[in-house]
């Protein structure tokens, strides 16, 4: 009996060092919403495919700051103290909090539109230091082209956003420039919290020919209210976030955030295999999906041209 116990203890002792080889990847986002959650899941998927299995040799930690930058700062300190192999902050404020909390743990940020403006890195090609990552700068020019293709007679784009979100404000400037090139004008309607979103959408009725929602955390989290306005007033709704189409938007051309997460995960794996973050250039995520919702189009009084349907990645009937 005693020897049996000893043998069991020995087996345990042998098993323990293998456990100790665990790598920890710590992920944090400023808020929980479908796109950011999809990015997180993409990271996890790639890690699993690369042989890092949760519960076996991978500890995958995830914390959401619930929209509060002070909590984001605290999560950043928590991670800095835990000393994981890689920290993956999702969104601008989370990334800034993590980058100022650690100068040595590798950081791979993602879903940040403007990494230079956010001072996460000073050089996209050669970031140096412990930080690299992926930008999700929206393909705004393609959005304007898509709007013109589906609605050739549209003159004014109604931009629905939260004026408190850094990404959305920088995208507004880009949109204005691109719309002008295409001979369209932009009017803006801002909602600073999700309770204001439906009202902000109504404010566009009669003033805009089409509603356009960027990758804005506030608007996207209250999208159902926007959809009902779009259907009631036959105001076609375009989004930059493809997950929004199944929730009732007419069309979206944008990153599939699972893919953005997967591309982020690939960088994480490279670092786990020994590459230095400072040597990995910061890239804009590649690959966009075109998703069309035919039922929503009908409700908004729009017929989507066959040419667009033909090249759609996904058509929801």
């Amino acid at each position, binding site marked *: 009996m005693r020897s049996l116990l000893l043998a069991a203890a020995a087996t345990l002792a042998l098993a323990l060092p293998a456990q100790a080889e665990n790598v920890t990847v710590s992920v944090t986002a400023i808020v*929980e919403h479908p796109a950011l959650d999809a990015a997180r899941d993409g990271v996890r998927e790639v890690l699993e495919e690369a042989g890092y299995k949760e519960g076996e040799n991978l500890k995958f*930690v995830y*914390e*959401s*700051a*619930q*929209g*509060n*930058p*002070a*909590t984001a*700062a*605290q*999560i*950043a*300190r*928590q991670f*800095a*103290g*835990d*000393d994981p192999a890689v920290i993956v902050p999702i969104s*601008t*404020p989370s990334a*800034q*909090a993590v*980058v*100022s*909390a650690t*100068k040595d743990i590798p950081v791979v940020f993602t879903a940040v539109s403007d990494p230079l*403006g*956010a*001072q*996460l890195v*000073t050089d996209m090609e050669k970031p140096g230091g412990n930080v690299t990552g992926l930008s999700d700068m929206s393909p705004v020019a393609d959005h304007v082209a898509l709007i013109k293709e589906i609605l050739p007679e549209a003159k004014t784009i109604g931009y629905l956003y939260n*004026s*408190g*979100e*850094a990404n959305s*404000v*920088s995208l507004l400037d880009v949109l204005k420039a691109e719309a002008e090139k295409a001979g369209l004008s932009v009017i803006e309607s801002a909602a*600073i919290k999700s309770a204001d979103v439906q009202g902000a959408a109504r404010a566009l009725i009669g003033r805009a020919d089409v509603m356009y929602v960027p990758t804005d955390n506030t608007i996207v989290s209250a999208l159902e209210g926007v959809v009902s306005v779009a259907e009631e007033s036959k105001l076609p709704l375009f989004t930059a976030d493809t997950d929004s189409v199944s929730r009732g938007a007419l069309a979206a051309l944008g990153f599939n955030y699972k893919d953005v997460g997967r591309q982020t995960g690939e960088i994480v794996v490279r670092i786990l295999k020994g590459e230095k973050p400072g040597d990995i250039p910061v890239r804009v995520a590649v690959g966009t999906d075109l998703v069309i919702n035919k039922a929503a189009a009908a409700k908004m009084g729009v017929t989507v041209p066959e040419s667009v349907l033909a090249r759609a990645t996904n058509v929801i009937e």
Partner: protein
Amino acid sequence: MSLIAFWGAVELGLVYAFVAIGVYLTFRVLDFPDLTVDGSFPLGAAVTAVLIISGVNPWLAATVAMIAGAIAGLVTALLNVRFRILNLLASILTMIALFSVNLRVMGKPNVALINADTMLSPFFGLGLRDFYVRPLFVGLLVLFAVVLVWRFLESDAGLSMRATGANARMARAQGVDTNRQIYLGIAISNALVALGGALFAQTNGFADVTSGVGTIVVGLAAVIIGETLFGARGILIALIGCVLGSILYRIAIQLALSSDILGLKASDLNFVTALLVTVALILPRLRRGGAAS
């Protein structure tokens, strides 16, 4: 909890100690529920960040932030004292207006300071690890603020302010200009809160327009935790209670984040906060009940 996480919590607790002292001044001393702080905290962060980016000395930037906070407080006081708007409503109006003001000040929702020189920069690289330098630095400023506010409240001027909050009619009968006391108290309170915001921006490397959400709750939680632990035995004890309450609040959150220990997630934080404040409110009653039986 790791060492870095622990000192990170202490540091954030010390930054929010300015909020706690500010909330103590309005809620407890003046008996004026002031929600302006949800706007003056990010205002302090915004002003300091924009000034530092444009090359102003960080100490001066923090001072200007305090003045901006004081002005925000004066607006609330003006709405209440001069125009007779209910105190709570007056402060909500200022708070909402400040969201737009903060966006105007920064020109965008988020200003980064990660690579800028701050008040703390000269103290890094002197031998102490960064995660000790930050709480030490902020702690010294808190100590300074506690002593100043304590001396003020013990002075004749401070006595008038305390009388205003305790019994305004009586204070007026004794010749105290209670309106002036409200202006002064709310201005000082919001200047301190704005300094907290300025320090948050400088220690965390960014000012974000959303960072004011729930500031009042955090400040109130700190005041109540402090009172519960130390009782209301004099001004100095109460102020120290605010500081320690703020630190304990952050440590409680950090514990919630060390999910291995309690099985809690960051998404449970709101519940933890509510629970903390509730327990702090109930505890004195239970104690009294226990003594009676």
